[in-house]
């Protein structure tokens, strides 16, 4: 299986913690990576659309408490499907193998001067 595009990976990772809406996913990713990964709005929704089409995520009814009652935008909530969970696990394992390999490389183990 090909490696996941990074935007898909970040979204799936976020949703593994529980359902969320678009804005919530975006914020979550930014916070988790401390600003290193910023998903643009367009990229975000393209990825969401693709993940949904591939069956990795699905729209669900969100927690009403999460909706901003004063706004007219009803956020659509997404959750990880079983398929999506599998894909995520696979990807994490792939990354683990890569990190494990990297840890054993002498070049990466030399102490910084």
């Amino acid at each position: 299986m090909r490696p996941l595009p990074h935007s898909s990976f970040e979204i799936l990772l976020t949703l593994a913690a529980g359902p969320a809406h678009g804005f919530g996913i975006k914020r979550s990713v930014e916070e988790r990576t401390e600003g290193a990964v910023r998903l643009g709005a367009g990229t975000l929704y393209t990825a969401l659309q693709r993940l949904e089409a591939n069956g990795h995520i699905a729209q669900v009814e969100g927690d009403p408490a999460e909706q901003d009652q004063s706004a007219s935008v009803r956020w659509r909530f997404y959750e990880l499907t079983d398929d999506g969970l599998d894909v995520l696990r696979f990807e994490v394992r792939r990354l683990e193998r890569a990190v494990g390999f990297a840890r054993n490389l002498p070049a990466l183990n030399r102490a910084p001067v």
Partner: protein
Amino acid sequence: MTAQSNHETPGFVARVALRLLPAAFRQLHGREIARIWRLDWSARTGTSARLRWLLDESIDILRTAARERVVSTGRRNPSHRHPQGDPLMTGLTHELLRAGRRLLRTPGFSLLAVGTLALGTGASIAIFSVVHGVLLQPLPYPEPDRLVTIYHAPLDAPMEQNAVSFGNFADWRNQTSSFEAMAATFSQSARLSHPGDPRRVTLTGSVASPFDVLQVRPLAGRVFHSEEDRPDAPAIAVLSRTLARDLFGSATAAVDQSIELDGVPRTVVGVVPDPIEAGLDPAHIWLPSRFSEEMRQKRTEYWLRVIARLRPETSPTAAQAELDTLMSVLRREHPQANENVTASMRPMRETLVGDVSQRLVLLQAAVALLLLIACANVANLLMTRGDQRRGEIAVRRALGASRRRVIGELLLESGWLALAGGLGGLAIAAGAQRILPVLLPTDLPRISDIELSVPVAVFALALAATSSLVFGVLPALFTTRNRRTEELRRGRGGGAVVGSGVVIAEVALATVLLIAAGLLLRSFDQLRSVDPGFETSNLLTFNLPAPSLGSDADPGAQRFEYFRTATEALEALPGVESVGLISNLPGSGRGTGAWINFQDRVLPENETPPIAVYRVASADYFTSAGISLRAGRFTTDRDGADGTPSVLVNEAARQQFWPGEDPLGKVITLGPNGGWIPPSTVVGVVGNVQHRGLGTDDLPVVYMPHALARIWDEMGVVVRTSAAPEQIIGNVRRTVSGLHPDAAAFDFASAEQLLARSVAPTLALGRLLALFAATALVLAAGGIFATFSYAVARRHREIGIRLAVGAAARGVFTMVVAEAMARIATGIVIGLVLAIAVARSFSALLYDVPPHDPLTLGLGAIGLFLVSLLAVALPARRASALEPAPILRGD
């Protein structure tokens, strides 16, 4: 969240941005995206954070839009309605191609429109590059706004720029705190004898270092600094890039090489870019002048041009004030030398380009006019075409095509025209770049700085785009206003009214250009026929420096002897009638001034003597050059050797210094305290010579005999020949080098060429304007032809009826022509009025030609009238040749 988050709909900007996305994607996700944008925006504070976010999100949305719209197989995406790709993108390509094909179906119109646009924008870009390169671009030095020039000026005329004395410069440099660096320069020419053949180069001598002020980066080696300007410092030089290449092949190869200038060996320490001032050759040398302490203190030698760099924290006003205070002190301390003198500081850029800015502005205005005419033409063409297609468009509207679609199509066509016209314009401009240096006035500074820059190209394309899109839209708006099918049969159009208005405007503008060009060319003509004061035919001129003749107790006698021998040798050549020597050739504009003191007058306290120009002339100079003697006699070689020295003065001097008196027999001296020449008697008055070139004022001149001023080390030579002057140049060269191995005559020119140089700028300007005027004429004629062709075609029915009821064909012809010419005459009259107003604004450039010169105005008006008549006659003939029957039948 702030109150902003209560807005229901996305803001305007967000909506526009969302339009980039394909419709389906937008409908699904648009609202959420807009909301995210709003939340992100309000969560960020600070301009830089917001700008960064703006940049990131813009790129993101553009990428997304592109990705979502482009065809991508292998994507299973339910939001795309058309598997082959997004309708907007593919539709756009098809629409573009269709619009292009439509234009190609009417090649005449399309070529005309594109050609007109290309011509107009091409000329604009070419001239604008010149204006940009010379006037607008900052000087090529770091922080150029802090660079200033400081000149002497009379207290009551601070705009003058006079050379500065050594002593004053030293005080300005040492006793002010406003300047980070200051240096003084003077221009000379010198003989470069090694390496290579002897040649003449222009040279900048400096006190302190101009490089410290300008902060020029050397291309190779180094520049010299102020400390190296000491009498005991080594003899060094800095070369310009052109000279380094000429002599040594490259800039780097020149460093540490040795050259010989005027007999003095010097080491090249570095190479810098070519000088940008007008009048300096690209092959140029800079030297520290290494004057003695005594020379640096002189207050009565005025040679220097002072440049300086302001300190960052000092304002120009503060600096000027400091100089003013210092000058009042200096005026007190050295009353004679600094009488009525003040320091005038100006930004360096102004000094460099000040003279030419008026001419450049005129050029720019002329080309803007040409562009307007071109745009008017294109507008006319587009409107005419729009009118022609009225019927077709009405049919399509009736069949259900949306107004937007039709306007869109017309806009696409205009877009193509704009693109082709703009690109054509760039091509024309690039070609013009090559030939412009030939056409441009030769005294423009920074010619090497002119290039087709990005701002210029952007300007051009924007221009082409705006003009064609605007004029593409107008007919689109007119023609799609009504859906009613009656339009199909109606023949009138709003375009007609605008069409003739545009023609009047075109004619008026073309008139202005024509008149402006005419006035300048007449100026040039007047200048050429000015009496220069000497006989210019068959007169060869050149410069002859005395070679270094070895040290001797009396260099004056040596040099005088050298010049005498040279003169004799030249006179002996075949084809030479006579030879004369003069310290500065007429028409060259070079010379020196001195105070003139009159022995029979007492100068009141605190008053400075008047200034006269002085020249050194051999006894035969006046007869060789053909300068007339007005009174008294010429000097002879014997004057000065014994007895009271004699001098000559010119008419201007007589009128200025001895009004109503006879100057013959009066005794004068020159210089402060009369120290430069011993008391000399005026023995003759000669005619005025246009020294600074044709059309300049006559200055008072005192001619000293050569015998009196033997120390002169370079003389201009005039040779009266019996045949064409150019023919004896070879002989002259050989004779001069035969006399002395180090001698070299240079800068050969016939007297006519010398004078032509002075009027070259006016000629160049006139030529360029004439080029524009001719182009404008052609464009206007084309526009008139097109408009009236169409007007006639539209009045088919009316004309047919007239012919049917018996009007003679000739009557119809006359009617059409008369109506057309009435409009054109209006245009010409308006144009004449405008032309006079415009000519007034550049009247400083005209010589002896008033802005309302009847000859030019008359010729211009008649010319335009005739050309327009021709352009109208053709469609008119066609009108009168119409067959009435088919028209009446309604075909």
